[in-house]
C-alpha cells in the first residue's frame, strides 16, 4: 500500500531550509529574551512549540493532500466555528480576544484560518482555472469564502491576521489570473470602499495607520517603537555587535522584542550580513515553494503551494518592513522566528503541505487520474 516513491521523493531541501530558519529563530529569540528574567524561559517554550510543530508538519505531509481537497469544506467550516467560538469564549489579552484555551495551551484560530482559506480557495479555483482569467462574477463565491473569516478575525480584533488573509487570497487570484477589466473594476471598487473600511476601524487601529503615515504623531507609542527599532537595526552596521551584545534589545528599548520586533534584535546583533542571510533563507524557501507549485501536475496542489508561499512571503515582508518603518505596525509575526505557538504551528503545517505536494508530484504523471 505504502508507495516507495513517496520516500524517494521526500523534499530534503525544504526540510533543511526549514531547520536552518528555525535554528536562526531560536538563537535570536534566546538573545531577545536574555535580558529579561521574566521571559528568559520563552526560548525553551519555543523549542517545545517547534517540536509540536514538527509533529503537525509530519502529519501534514503523510496524509495525501488530495484528501484535503475532498474535505476542504468541512475543514473550512470547522475553522469558521472556531473563529466564532473565540469571539464568545476566547481569552482576552490586551484588549483583543484572539486566544482559545484548551487545558494548558492556548492558540489563535485566526492562524489556522490562514491555511483553511488557502485550501478552500485552491479547491474552488482548481476546478475552473482558464487562460482568460477570472471575471468579477467568477470571484463572487471566493469572495464569500474569504470575507467571512476576514470579518470574524477583524472583530477580535486582529487586523494583522485579517489583512494577511485578504493579501493571500488576492495573491492567489492574481496568480490564477484575473481579467484586466475585472481587475480595474475591483481596484476602483476597493479604493472607493476605503472610507467605509476606515469608519469600521477601531481607534487604536486608525492611530497606527496615521502613525505609519506620520511617525511623529505618536511619539510615546508606535512612533517611539519604530525609532528605537531603526536605531537598533542601523547600529548593527555591516557585521553586527555580536551574539547577546545588542544593547538596544538588552536595555528593553525595543517593544515586543520577542514577537513583532524580533528582526530588530537579529539585525542589531548580526548586522547587515546576518539580516541579509536570514532574508535570503526565506527567499530560498519561497523560490523552492514556487518550484514545488510548478512541479505539481494538478491544479489544486499548485494553488495550495502558491497560497502557502504567499502566506509566508507576505508575513516576512510585512514584519521586516514594519521594523524598518516601511509598513504600519500591525501584529504580523516573522515566520518561525517570532515567539508564538500558533504562528509556529501554522507555518509548519504550511511547510508540511508543501512537502506533501512536492513528494506526491509523481502520482499525477500518467494520463487521466
Amino acid at each position, binding site marked *: 500500500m505504502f508507495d516507495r516513491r513517496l520516500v524517494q521523493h521526500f523534499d530534503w531541501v525544504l526540510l533543511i531550509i526549514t531547520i536552518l530558519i528555525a535554528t536562526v529563530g531560536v538563537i535570536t529569540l534566546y538573545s531577545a529574551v536574555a535580558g529579561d528574567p521574566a521571559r528568559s524561559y520563552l526560548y525553551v517554550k519555543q523549542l517545545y512549540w517547534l517540536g509540536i510543530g514538527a509533529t503537525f508538519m509530519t502529519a501534514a505531509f503523510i496524509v495525501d493532500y488530495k484528501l484535503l481537497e475532498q474535505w476542504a469544506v468541512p475543514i473550512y467550516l470547522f475553522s469558521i466555528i472556531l473563529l466564532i467560538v473565540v469571539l464568545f469564549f476566547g481569552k482576552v489579552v490586551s484588549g483583543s480576544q484572539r486566544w482559545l484555551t484548551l487545558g494548558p495551551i492556548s492558540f489563535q484560530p485566526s492562524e489556522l484560518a490562514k491555511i483553511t482559506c488557502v485550501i478552500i480557495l485552491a479547491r474552488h479555483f482548481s476546478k475552473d482555472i482558464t487562460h482568460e482569467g477570472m471575471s468579477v462574477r467568477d470571484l463572487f463565491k471566493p469572495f464569500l469564502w474569504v470575507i467571512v473569516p476576514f470579518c470574524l478575525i477583524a472583530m477580535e480584533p486582529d487586523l494583522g491576521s485579517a489583512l494577511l488573509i485578504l493579501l493571500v487570497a488576492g495573491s492567489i487570484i492574481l496568480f490564477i489570473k484575473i481579467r484586466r477589466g475585472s481587475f480595474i473594476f475591483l481596484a476602483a471598487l476597493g479604493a472607493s470602499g476605503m472610507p467605509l473600511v476606515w469608519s469600521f476601524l477601531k481607534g487604536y487601529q486608525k492611530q497606527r495607520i496615521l502613525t505609519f503615515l506620520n511617525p511623529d504623531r505618536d511619539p510615546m507609542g508606535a512612533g517611539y517603537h519604530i525609532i528605537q527599532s531603526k536605531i537598533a537595526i542601523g547600529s548593527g552596521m555591516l557585521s553586527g555587535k555580536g551574539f547577546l551584545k545588542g544593547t538596544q534589545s538588552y536595555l528593553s528599548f525595543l517593544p515586543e522584542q520577542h514577537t513583532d520586533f524580533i528582526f530588530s534584535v537579529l539585525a542589531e546583533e548580526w548586522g547587515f550580513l546576518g539580516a541579509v542571510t536570514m532574508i535570503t533563507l526565506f527567499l530560498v524557501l519561497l*523560490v523552492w515553494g514556487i518550484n514545488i507549485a510548478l512541479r505539481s501536475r494538478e491544479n489544486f496542489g499548485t494553488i495550495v503551494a502558491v497560497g502557502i*508561499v504567499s502566506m509566508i512571503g507576505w508575513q516576512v515582508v510585512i514584519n521586516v518592513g514594519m521594523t524598518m518603518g*516601511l509598513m504600519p505596525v500591525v501584529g504580523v509575526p516573522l515566520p518561525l522566528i517570532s515567539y508564538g505557538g500558533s504562528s509556529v504551528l501554522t507555518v509548519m503545517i504550511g511547510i508540511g503541505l508543501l512537502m506533501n505536494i512536492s513528494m506526491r508530484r509523481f502520482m499525477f504523471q500518467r494520463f487521466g*487520474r
Partner: protein
Amino acid sequence: MVSKKGYKNWHTTFSAVVARATMAKSATLGTSNLFIMRSGYFNSVDTDWYKKRFYRLLICIVVGYSILFVRLYYFQILKGEDLRRMAENNYVRLESLPPSRGLIYDSNGELLVDNRPSFNISIILEDAPNPEQVIKRLALLLNIPPAPLLKKIQGARRSQPFKPIILKSDVRRDELAVIKTRRFDLPGIIVAVEPQRHYLMESGASHLIGYLGEISQRELTSGRYPDNKSGDFIGKFGVEKTCGSYFLGKRGGRQIVADALGRTTEVLNTVEATPGKNVYLTIDRRLQKVAEDMLSKKISGAVLAMDPNNGHILAIASSPSFDQNALVEGMSHSEWKAVVANPLHPLGNKAIQGQYPPGSVYKIITAMAALEEGVVAADTEHFCQGYYKFRNRRFRCWQEAGHGNLNIREALAQSCDVFFYKVGEKLGVDRLARYAKGCGLGLRTGIRRDNEAMGLVPTMSWKLRRFGSPWQKGETRVLAIGQGFNLVTPVQMVSLISAVANGGIRYRPVIIKEIRDYDGTLLETTAPEILGRLPASKETLSIIKKGLEDAVNTRSGTGWSVRLPGGVMAGKTGTAQVIKLAEDRDTKEEDIPFRFRDHAWFIAYGPTKKPSIAVAVLVEHGGHGSTAAAPIAREVIKTYLELYPEELYPENTELGI
C-alpha cells in the same frame, strides 16, 4: 517553444499538448522524462501558461524582497555609524509624565482633596559612573544615613538601568537648593516634581475618603490595576479606593534626547498627561465638620446623616479618626504600629463596619410588627408596674417606678420596656425577624463601600444552627427591646430612620453625588435607587412617627432634653447593653469598666413636617442614648436646618436658637 496559437486548440489536439508540455517541463527543470498532464477537473490550462504566471510571481517576490535589502543597506551601511552612535548614547529616551489624580469635592463643590507638588530625588543608575559614591555624597548633603539609600539601588542596575529610582521623596525646599547647587558632583541624580495627595480637611471624613499608599506586589499581580506600575500610589481605602479608576487619568510622556551624562539636551515630543476625573461626594463639608467635632468629644463612635428623600449621605464620621496626610507622606514604623494596635480601631469605619445591639431603637421595629400583625391597635393599652414577671423571673423596665397605663405611641415616646416585652412575647421571634429584615436589618444597605457589615437578625432556626439549643421565650422579650443577639450597623439605622421619615421608602445610601471631567463637564450622576419599602402601612408609620415626635417633644419623652424649638425634630433613644449584668443592676455607670459600659444610640429626623435630614448617632460605651448620643444628633440637625433654612416649613421658622 510552441506558439501562442497552440492554446486555442488544445481540446482537439490532445497529443500535441502532451508533447508540448513534456518539452516545456524538460526544458525548465530537466528532472523528468515522463509524460506530463495537468489533471484539473473540467477544463484546464497547460504548463506554459502556468510558467508565465510563475515568472510573474517570482518577479513580484524578488522585487518585494529587494526593497527590504535596499532599506537594510540604507540603515545599516549608509546610516549605520550615525545610528550606532545614537544607540551608544541611548540617544532617545522616554520619560513618563504622571497624570494628576482627580480631585474630591463635597456636594456644594467645596474642595476636600487636591494635589500639591512634591519634589523627589531620584537616581538613574546608567548615568552615574559610580552610584555608590554619588549616593554617599548625597546622603552627606541631606544629612541622612546612606545605608537605606544604597539598599534601594541593589539589584536594580541590571533590570532597569534607565528607570529613575526614588531615593528620597518630598524633600524640603532648602534641601532642594543644596542639591541643585551641587549638581555637578552628583551625576545621575535628578529631581522630579510629582503631584502628592493633600487632604484639606485635617483628618476630616478620613474614613469616607480613605488614603493612598504605594501599590503592593500582591496588588500588582492581582490584575485589578492594569494601568499601574510598581512605585505608583493607589487608593487603599475609602473613596480613594472605590473610585480609584475615576481618579487615574492618562499617563503622558516625553521623548527626549539625552547626552552621555543623562542630561536632557532636546525634547523631541511631548504628550501631555490627562488629569483624572473629579468626584463630588454627597457630604456637606460644614455638616461633616460639626459631626466630627461633636463626636471627637467622645472616645469612639459613629455619626451618619442622610437625606431621606434620595439616600444621599450628608455626613459620615467615625471616631477615633486618623491623619490621611501622615499616611500619604509616609509614617514611621512605630507610628504605623501605634495606629494599628490602637484598641479603638481608628482605621475601621464604625459607621458601616461596626456592629452593635440596637437597644431601644429597635422598638420602632417591634412597634411596626405589632401594629401590622394586629397584636396591638393604636389605642391598646398595657400596664407597666416597673417590671414584668414571668416564671419567677423579673424583666425590669428602665423606669423602676413604672409607666402606668400606656398605648403604643406613649410606649415609644417613653421607651417603656414592659409594653414591648408583652408585645414581643405575642409576636414571637420569627415574626419579629421578618419585619427586621423587611426594614433592611441583617442585610447590607448597599452603600458602595468596602467591607460593609451585615449585622444580625436572630431567628429560631438561626439559634439552633449557631448554638444547637432551642429558642427560649424569654429571649424574645429581650429581643423585642433590642437587646440579646440582635446586631445592627449605624448605616442600617440611618437607613431605617430615613425610611420612617420619608413615609416608608428605603433608598440605597449614596456617597458619590456626581463625577465630572477635569474641565468640569458632568459625566455621571448617581440617581436615587429605591431598594424597597418598609413593611408598614401609612397608618402604622404615622403612629410610629407620632411616637418619635413625642419622644423628643413631650416632657415624659426620653429625648425631651434635646428638643429643638418648634418641635422640628423627632427621634428615638437607645441604650444597648454590652454584657448582661445582674438583673438588679445598681452599679453606677461610672463604676463600670469602660469596655463594659452601654452603647448609646440616638436616631432622629427633621423637620417633622417634611423631613429633609435623618441622623443616626452611636457612641461606643457612651452610656445613655439620651445623654451621650442625642446631643450630637441634635447639633447635626440644628446645623443642617441653619445651613439650609429653606428646608424648614414657614411655621417652623421660629427656630431661632
